[in-house]
């Protein structure tokens, strides 16, 4: 089969991996790179469990041909902690009770992060829109929205103090 070696930056580190032309990026992450934090809930872009950031934008990695990742910068849930410190989104998800079964959580956090990386003062509507492609069947979204709002608040405070959260 025609395979291709693709190179990209994954969670801050350069990676090269050989992929098939029709291989989807979620499978490369989960099977070739053993990064199983990114979940596969439907395989057809309908649930958002597989959300990763590609150059800062949230995408469903189950719809993303692996070859398109060449030369990009990818962030997955495994790259959200900063030097072993939980990101404010992770802390807020835990403290506000936004985690139940945990299967949607990585994708949910990635979608929220794509928003907060650009906008640290989102409205409630902007928060809900940002995660509207991420299905959660456990929480009813109430505590997820609260957690994202809470994380935004923490990030704003940190920005005032001059700390950074990548």
């Amino acid at each position, binding site marked *: 089969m025609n395979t291709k070696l693709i190179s990209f930056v994954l969670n801050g580190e350069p990676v090269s991996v050989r992929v098939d032309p029709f291989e989807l990026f979620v499978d490369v992450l989960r099977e070739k790179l053993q990064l199983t934090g990114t979940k596969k809930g439907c395989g057809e872009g309908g*649930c958002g469990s597989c959300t990763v950031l590609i150059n800062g934008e949230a995408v469903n990695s189950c719809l993303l041909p692996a070859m398109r990742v060449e030369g990009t910068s990818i962030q997955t*849930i495994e790259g959200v902690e900063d030097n072993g410190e939980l990101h404010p989104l992770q802390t807020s998800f835990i403290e506000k009770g936004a*985690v139940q*079964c945990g*299967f949607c959580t990585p994708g949910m956090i990635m979608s929220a992060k794509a928003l907060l990386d650009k906008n640290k003062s989102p409205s409630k509507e902007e928060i809900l829109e940002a995660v509207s492609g991420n299905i959660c069947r*456990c*929480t*009813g979204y109430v*505590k997820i929205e609260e957690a994202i709002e809470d994380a935004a608040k923490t990030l704003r405070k940190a920005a005032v103090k001059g700390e950074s959260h990548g």
Partner: protein
Amino acid sequence: MANLRAVGKSVDRRDGVDKTTGRALFTSDMTFPGMLHAKVLRSPHAHARIVSIDTSKAEKLDGVKAVMTHKNGPKNLFNAAAPMFLTVSNLERVLDQYLFDEIVRYVGDEVAAVAATTEAIAEKALSLIEVEYELLPAVLDAEEAMSENAPELHAGKGCTPEGKNIPGEIIRIPYGDVEKGLKESDVVIEKSFTLPIVKQVQMETQSAVAQVSGSGDVTVWSTTQTPHPSRAILGQVFGIPASKIRVLAPPYVGGGFGVRIGLSGLAEAIALGLALQAKRPVKMVYSRKEDFIASDTRHPATVTVKLGAKKDGTFHALDLKGIFNTGAYCGFGTELPGVCGAMTLAIYRIPHQRYLGHSVYTNRTSSGAMRGFGNPQGNFALEQVVDMMADALGMSPYELRLKNIMKVNDPWCLPFPCLSTELAECMKQASESIGWEKRESLKASAPHKVRGMGMAVGTHVSNAWPFCVDYDNAYFTVQSDGTVHVASGVPEMGTGVCTSLIQIAADAFGIDMDRISLSFGDTLTTPFDIGSHASRTCYAAGLAIKEAAEDARAQIFDYVAPYFDVTPEMVSLQDGYVFVSSLSDPDAASVVSLDDVKEHKQSKVSLENIAYHAHVRNKQFISTGKIVPKNAPPWHVCFADVEVDTETGKVDVLNLVAAHDVGTAVNPMIVEGQIEGGVVQGLGYALTEEIRYNDSGVQTHSNMHSYMLPTAEDIPPMKSIIVESHDPTGPFGAKGAGECSLVCPASAIANALANATNIRFTELPATPERIFAKLHPQN
């Protein structure tokens, strides 16, 4: 209660860090050296006989290591759901399924399975299997399936005086004299309601990985909600001793909502069958489509209510009937109609009641357990008829309910007493929150819109007894360093048991949560447990852990009493320290070693010191909890404020309020999460979610794009209210909390729609199309 340090606190979940960092492992994440991938060939026909099946080309494909069909699969009849193992002694088990059969009974039924070195090869192999089918007449509708001319789905099973294709017991609940009660009633209202097929859509699809050792020991990583019963089911399917089978979660399960009480679809059995053949680990992960078409849905149903009341509003008679379409295989088809009847009859104090309910086989995907387990179907029907009765009597629906709801120790049809209810207080707090007093003067936001409010009330159970077998066990070990290890067989499917059970253990024993670890969801390391269903986990597993902790405490008191020179009853344990109960201020007491305590009786001794003291004298404090739970009713209300666009039929839910009495809320944040999640599932049940079939028996809503789940943008303003009671039968007063939340929302929304439009919606979901059609019958 004075001494509770952990119970009642919204402590962070134990699994929070793993689940927010991607470290949490699920079955679908598991991988092993040499592991094969399984794929299943499924029937394209609703009902057919396999005349011939040729797998030779598939077997020759490079990378294919095992192929299984009805020709070489196990030949033991089973039931993939927990009744295989948990049917109570007065009912007969319905065993109606082979892993592979020569008859296929629904579109999606298993025809063959392949294990190959990659998913792509397994998929390719399926396309090389040649099957010749002889089509058989199919029946999709429950009423039709009961008729004389209907095809028989399971030869020799289900011919009853009530009709054909009725599996298992017909459930009859007699109470008082319903005919007499209806005659004595001043007003009688009768109405039938139609409930749709909906799906759990738990985020992790049905999955399993099976591994067989050289000595024949079997390990199955699984998404099941019930590891121990699933082990027993696998044992019977394959004729392998249960003691050689280990079923475990790795450690997390991506949601359940009832879809895997018993096997996860057939994932465990398919993976194990192929692993036995290939002698290599096999992984079976259902695609989302397979999860839709080949794992249990909620039972669609027709429920008929006949309610009689006296002029003053006193309910006098209730006659209830429920017919449930259970699809191709029975599953929970006997137990679920029973729960529908019992839960619907148990809400109100009515002297004359009767229930008749049963399932019907049809050529559709099997129906099974989904959060609420028959209760939402009955509640939707009864709670609308209660509103109709209020209209007929000229009473407020609130006052009518308040007059009739069950009180503590009222007689009812259930075989356990009602020892706690704060339902009236739930009604009060929820009505105040939503502004119920404005119901008669609500203003819509535009001239073509109408607005209304509705309410509904209900109950549920705190474990499965008397509908299914229910008992529980726990191990409790005090390690030689004074820390504690607890083992309980329940899995963590998101409901927070790996946290709340530790809260119970901490307060039952008297140490900090940080000093307790929990093994769960693994048949090898935990004692037998029924699993996570019937809102039982915190209640029943919690009781077993509490009993074990109390036993370990007693052992410690027996051990230390002579050192303190007192009787064991005079010793206490709190915050990890043992002291004489009469000690005025244990917090301020100095810490000494057990050997020195005789000299310093006003002191306390650390558990660490005692455990090591015992250890070097060949003694360990280790106990088991073995309980048969009683049962207890949680109570709940939902209030809805809705606006309907009369030009389009579109519904806006403006506000939803749910108030729940779940006894003591062991972890209020987790309980709120249970309420909010269930209410939103109820919102979907009310307005958007539905699986429909075409005439060939094919699901037309079998993926995330066509099955309309609520998204974050569909959520109305919501409030969850916890009204605590203390139930004497539960651990620290707790009752079941997992399922109530999905029972009432659709009923409340339907009542709000009727209040807004003066039209009764008897069919769910209340889509814009259905509403428009009712609003504009001339079109």
